[in-house]
């Protein structure tokens, strides 16, 4: 009987048998969808500027409008379809953050408003906020010392 295959040998076999993700096509799709979302953001910002809002306010309004739009699209079941097509193109913009808050909220509401919706709403956004805040504190400490 031939010798049994080792884990290392098997790992090589698996690599050979498993098709790679179509990186090039995925990147092109991500580029266009991500680019379009940002362009829409620019359009909203420019409109806010026309109404005489400051740059700071305009970019806040832009975020808010994009977040609400993505949340509604998630509720309608359309954002997951966009995500399947665009990959990172719809994950990386702020709309992806909004989707990652709304999707678990909808999915886990059957487990109740407190421990279902209430707790699970942060399964993806929680780590984002946690590590974002931790990094900002580190940045703040360095900035305080230097200034």
């Amino acid at each position, binding site marked *: 009987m031939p010798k049994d295959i080792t884990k290392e040998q098997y790992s090589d076999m698996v690599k050979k048998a498993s098709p*790679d*993700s179509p*990186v090039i096509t*995925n990147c092109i799709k*991500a*580029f*266009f969808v*991500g*680019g379009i*979302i*940002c*362009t*829409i*953001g*620019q*359009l*909203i*910002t420019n409109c806010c500027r026309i109404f005489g809002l400051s740059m700071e306010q305009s*970019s*806040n309004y*832009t*975020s*808010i409008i*994009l977040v*609400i739009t993505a*949340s509604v699209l*998630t509720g309608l*079941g359309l954002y*997951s379809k966009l995500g399947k097509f665009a*990959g*990172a*193109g719809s*994950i*990386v*913009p*702020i709309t*992806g*953050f*909004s989707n*990652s808050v*709304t999707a678990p909220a*909808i999915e886990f509401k059957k487990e109740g408003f407190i421990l279902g*919706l209430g707790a699970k*709403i942060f*399964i*993806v*956004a929680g780590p*984002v*906020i946690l590590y*974002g*805040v931790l*990094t*900002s*504190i*580190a*940045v*703040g400490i360095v*900035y*305080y010392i230097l*200034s």
Partner: protein
Amino acid sequence: MDYLKAFVVGGIICVIGQILIDKTKLTSARILVLFVVCGCILGGLGWYQKLVEFAGAGASVPLFGFGNTLARGVMSEIDEAGVMGIFTGGLKAASGGITVAIVSAFVMACIFDPKEK
């Protein structure tokens, strides 16, 4: 012209994310965390703001921009309120986005049921 800049820069940032997903098998949750943390560091160094000034929404809409907002919030709060700003500045600057995200998520959850792909 700002539209073209926003489109190209925003697109390129998304391509970075796509390459990370396809090459490293990082889940989308990890990508989001990574982008916010990186954006925050780049923001702290003052580099990211330069990109925002160049590309507008192309740089502020991707999650790097969210990290950048946290860093800038902390720094400007320190300038105004001193050491306390380290703790209050970040979330204060990001509060609009986070609040709207969770409120609209709650409303959507009340209205809609999950849909199969």
